[in-house]
């Protein structure tokens, strides 16, 4: 069975890793917080594994999940 993804962003070739000189691709990542894990798909560098968390994701969904978990 395919693993569930809570969030998916496709970089559409608009992001480049400066260290490796390659474009970021949609890749598997996981948010971890207070002993909880959330699999997601985010722009990831295929060579060095740099994961990009966009501002709107950090201040939107990530923040609200953080707050919900903090009050658990």
């Amino acid at each position, binding site marked *: 069975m395919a693993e569930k993804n809570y969030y998916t962003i496709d970089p559409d*070739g*608009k*992001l*480049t*890793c*400066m*260290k490796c000189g390659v474009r*970021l691709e949609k*890749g*598997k*990542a*996981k*948010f*971890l*917080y*207070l*002993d*909880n894990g*959330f*699999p997601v798909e*985010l*722009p*990831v*560098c295929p060579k*060095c*594994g*740099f*994961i*990009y*968390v966009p*501002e709107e994701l*950090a*201040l939107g969904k*990530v*923040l609200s*999940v*953080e*707050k*919900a*978990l*903090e*009050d*658990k």
Partner: protein
Amino acid sequence: MIEERASTHVYRQKRMFTKEELEAREHLCVHEQPPYCNAACPLKLDTKAMIAAVSAGDFDRALALYDKITPFPHILCALCEAPCEGKCKLHEVGEGVSIRELETAALRFGAPPKKRGLLRKKNKKAAIFGGDLFTLFLAGELCRKMYPVTVFCQQDGYAAFLRACASGMPEEILAASEQTLSRMDITFVWNTDPAEAFAEKNASFDLRCAAYDTAQLLFPGLAVDEAVMVCREHRLITGRTQGVLGAAFGAKKAALSADRLAQNLDPANTRGEEGSVETRLYTSLDGVSPSQRIPCTDRASAVAEAKRCIQCRCEECIKGCAYLQHYKKFPRILTREIYNNVSIIMGDHMMNKPINACSLCGQCSVLCPNGYDMAEVCHIARQNMVTTGKMPLAPHEFALMDMLFSNDEAFLCRPQPGYAQCKYVFFPGCQATAIAPATVRAAYLDLCQRLEGGVALMLGCCGAICDWAGRYEMYDDTVKFLDEQLARLGNPTVITGCPTCKKQLSSHAQLEIHGIWEILEAIGVPEKAKRLEKPVAVHDACGARGDKATQQSIRRIAESLGCQVTQTPYEGDKSPCCGYGGLTQYTNREVAKEMTDKCLERSDLPYLSYCMACRDRFAREGRESMHLLELVYGTSADHCPDISAKRYNRLSLKHHLLEEIWNEEVIAMDLGFTVAYTPEAEAMMDDRMILKTDVIRVLQSLRQTGEAIREENSGLLLTRARLGNVTFWVKYEEVDGGYRVHRAYSHRMNIVNRL
């Protein structure tokens, strides 16, 4: 770095209070106590609500409320002794409300309430033998409870029966009551001798009730338990009552006994509180002017009379506190919800925000007539949640890190040059050094010059931050650290610049502690002190609550500098918090702003404070605001420094004084690159609690790892670094010799690759 709690799957629990302590605390809150009029009424008429309905012109609702307490409102109203009127609070400043006249107006102008829902008749049958006021009311009460009721009486009809029961009643009352009675589902057996009927028929009824005279005839000398209106020996509901109120109340008690008897229970079983009660309510009459009764001749005059009612309630704490107003809860209910929040083992902690939003200022304990201390409840809850690992770090982390900065990188402790040990140590506090470094410098130089025996300097935090956060272990460490530093100085007399520091240090340091204002009063203000010849509102710091000497000292100094100190509401011990206390500024900006607004609504004048945090928060709201020491030393605080500037001020003050006073050279660290910020980035960082030092550390990490990405659309670069419990992202462009920062954001969640 402060350790984040390990997991949400922590199932530890520690009770905040014992059940007895919780109840003892709750008992102090009288908000839910009945108003005086309502408490005096044995029938428990919701007088306050009824008067409010009349006041709103809603006579139908007023009548519905009145009708609830009795089946015969006309009779009750006409003859009621109205003990409620005598208890009206307004008597203390004028004439009380004419409650009976308002009841009469409700009967006159209100439409009778519609019949209650379709209830099923009960299968236990009730018989009433003989007619008096008590049995009349009892018939009505039993009928409302859906018992099939049969009345055996000598009279030949409703009118005669009513006349016999309620003698001397005006005709229109009788007519109205006749209508009410005839509409009730009661079977009357007219022209019957009640005693004979009892002998013949009583066996065929489950519940037997009798007028007192009839009962005496049947069982001479019978003993009645008046508390339940039952003669237990004969299982007969009866009793002697006085007046209409006594009869109506007796009938209520008797009807409840009928319920118990119908279930074969003892009539005294679980009856609850009956009759009039003593209330513990407190109602302030501040601002209530004396007024006289208005005769209720028509609707308008009844409404006018009802509007005189002050709707007695105790909201003393809520009136003064923005926090309680925000959550719209009074202390008893808030305490119970906080207690439950702390007690739950799994699930959402819905009250974390309110627990962390209280400024812990203690104003409630002064305003409450019984001294209810909501601050203590919130503080204990915070400590409890820290103990059990349920307190999130996020709301307090920035403030705690700031405190660690104050007591580490920005900490300074030095004796005055030329003195191995000093008689005094000046402890200005973390907010004064962050907001007004020039003032702190001037104060220290002045004290060194004018006090004999040497004045040491200690720049740091008193520990209030971790105390407010409930981090008691961290607080113990801070206390130990400060005590050690003071011991190194030879345990000198402490001169604090801040009333909260004075309060905090007094709780542990076994030393003499004075506020700088006390010293200034003793040695006089310096000659270059700035005079301010205008009216000001003095804002008392919550750290000085209960410290009358400090409050008065501040006023005397202000007046000596030309200030005309005006009186404001909620001054002195009643003063509200500016929104900084208890870390509200960090945990809940919305509530903190409401607290500041609450402080500022007290006066339109410039505000003079003696706590730098108050001074800063008032200035941010655009009010002319100054700290007493700014006047004393003729120096100005920085205008609303952002979070980075506050840290920079503390550090640069330390470096500056080390060079100026102790001739210690401070070598500035060269980053090796420049960092510039767009105005948008600066504002954004202040709002998002991201320090410039955080951004610099991210950029330093970038220079080591080279990890960054380029956004094709904007051409800007992005990098990130995990600093402690937070990942910081910086969006920047490379410029000559360094970076120009365009945006910055952060998240606490960690992100990792997965296969």
